């Protein structure tokens, strides 16, 4: 197997999308001023819901909707804790992570009667793009991707459009930079943040569902393997902007695909160290070129009208 080929690009995309989706969620939430480190737990919730609903209905698209509903729930819980009750954002999202990891693992034996990995469910099929999939070199790209992959790119564009090209986006970002000023300008800070955090749950849950019913066909306890945290790293690396962060996610995906492949092609490269690389790079970026003023100024600060 050749290490550089179009199939490497394909697997890089497959590995990048489940980071891009929660990253977009984190971006929306943090741009509105709420730090969301609970993406990992929300992803696990989405991954399990997708498999459970697909298992019950037999249709992975319904499973995807189920994952989105689980995202509304987990995002909504975080929104209630952080925005409505003004609880500490880091503590509340830590709770989401702990509950997400524990509850999903505990529900597997309850639903299927077995521990660990669930039985296989139907996957979301990949999409053969007529005409393009027959092309030389890039052809496999147009037969190996699913509608969800295209949807993720569309969502990235939508998030960029809404956040940076619409009034609603301006309001969200205003809440994230200075809630008091936003409030003075007549923006409903609490409602905006509540919605943003809930939507971030939906994005994270979609990322989890991607892992369980697009990339794989089953749920496994802890299957997100820190991708929710990797999404945070991408956010920091990309300075809380959509396209740089998407690029970082793609780079993480490529590194991941490379690491997987090198296990076969070049087993002398230690796989575990390659897996640590994205995190090391994110730290180096923080230590060097990511300035201290990059993060939305009001992240972490609860807001209450005086």
């Amino acid at each position, binding site marked *: 197997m050749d290490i550089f080929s179009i199939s490497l690009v394909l697997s890089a995309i497959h590995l990048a999308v489940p980071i891009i989706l929660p990253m977009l969620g984190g971006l929306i939430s943090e741009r509105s001023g709420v730090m969301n480190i609970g993406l990992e737990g929300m992803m696990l919730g989405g991954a399990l819901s997708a498999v459970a609903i697909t298992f019950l209905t037999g249709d992975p698209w319904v499973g995807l909707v189920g994952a989105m509903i689980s995202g509304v729930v987990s995002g909504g819980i975080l929104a209630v804790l952080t925005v409505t009750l003004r609880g*500490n954002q880091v*503590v509340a999202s*830590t709770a989401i992570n*702990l*509950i997400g990891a524990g509850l999903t693992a505990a529900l597997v034996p*309850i639903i299927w009667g077995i521990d660990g990995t669930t039985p296989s469910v139907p996957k979301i099929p990949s999409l053969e793009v007529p005409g393009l999939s027959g092309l030389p070199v890039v052809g496999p790209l147009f037969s190996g991707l699913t509608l969800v992959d295209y949807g993720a790119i569309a969502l990235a564009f939508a998030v960029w459009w809404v956040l940076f090209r619409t009034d609603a986006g301006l309001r969200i970002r205003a809440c994230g930079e200075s809630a008091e000023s936003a409030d003075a300008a007549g923006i409903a800070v609490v409602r905006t943040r509540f919605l943003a955090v809930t939507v971030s749950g939906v994005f994270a849950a979609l990322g989890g569902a991607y892992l369980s019913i697009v990339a794989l066909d089953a749920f496994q306890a802890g299957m997100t393997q820190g991708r929710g945290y990797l999404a945070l790293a991408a956010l920091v690396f990309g300075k809380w902007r959509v396209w740089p962060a998407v690029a970082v996610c793609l780079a993480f995906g490529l590194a991941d695909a490379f690491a997987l492949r090198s296990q076969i092609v070049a087993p002398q490269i230690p796989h*575990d160290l390659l897996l*640590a690389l994205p995190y090391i790079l994110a730290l180096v970026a923080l*230590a060097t070129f990511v300035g201290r003023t990059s993060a939305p100024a009001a992240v972490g600060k609860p807001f209450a009208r*005086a």
Partner: protein
Amino acid sequence: MSTSTPQRPVAASTTPPRQRRASRIDADILAALAARPEPGARGFVSRFVSSVAPAGAGVGAKAGAFLITVSLALLAALPIVYLSGSDAATAIEALLGGSWGSGLAIGETFVQAIPLLISGLAVAVAFHTGLFNIGVEGQLVMGGLAAGIVGATVDLPGPLLLLACLAAGVAGGALWALIPALLKAFRGVHEVVTTIMMNYIAFNVSRFLVSPSGPFVSETQPSATEKIPLEARLAVVAPGTRLHAGLVIAILLVIAVAWLLYRTPEGFRLRLVGANPAAASTAGVSLRRTVVTSMLLSGGIAGIAGAVQVLGVFGRYYDAFSPGYGFEAIAVALLGALSPIGIAAAALFFGSLDAGAVQLQAVAGISREMVSVVSGLVVAFVAAQPAVLRLLRHLRERASARRAPARPTSARRASGTDPKDPA
């Protein structure tokens, strides 16, 4: 609330920085804190610290909050019990039987409580300075790894080797906390993000070091270091159980951390920076130095937790030897209201859950992941605590306003300033 109006602190603005001795600073700062600075002057972390660890709250109130939080979390987890086809009575019997039903069970409860207690202290030390050390898990892993490597490779007589292993544990943990500490102190990078990154670096690097191609892997046991000589391990202190001398280390650490936090100038500086960074800075406390000190202490203590597991339970470093003690420790520290004694109680509670979980799975058929759910619920309830306290005070003020209708203005003003200052 309506009787005492918050006043601007006098001491904080008139204190000449630096030259003062710790005791003088203490007196000034206590005055400043007692006078309660304007809400706007305090960061959200400091407001949170004072709501989790209210300086004036009595032991009774803290114990009450502890019991209420635990009961609510257990109640909220009850649906899982029934979904698993069991019932509350069976679950409670299995849980108590597995954790306190026999000498063996009690020993196991303490074995589980030891790493939770030590890493809970690690979380709390950072919390007192207003720092969220989410990286305790990674620091614990690196501490255990360092202890395991020293124990397997260094040639020293037993007790000396034991000390060397513990020292290596401290160094490993502290080293892993140093990078987030420096980034926080000098680059202003939020420690939550960096400690999470350090966790994943720790997991992957430690796995590599004992992987088949890693330098420290045992010749006979995959994913582990060589065994540590018996005489360099922490001895079993209760025959017939797994309870080891790590319990002594844990108790000594409770005393040491309590003494450090509440009886030394350094501890005072740590808490002061957490309670009111602006006042601390005005009083001449170096925020950078304090942040680094706090993180190093926190990481070092986390490293001891890992070393104690390696030296007392396994006798060697195993990959993935920690089922997530460092994350559960966040729940332990918050449930214990950041006080060392409270953390000891919280560690015993979670230790009982962890020990009882085995029985819970075997007898009642309830997944042991229940423990993780309960700890998450505890953390969620702690996050909601300030809001509950706010609500309680609001209700009390409404009640007192109704009782004294002659002075409605002061009551309205008091509740009006409320939301900005939940502490």
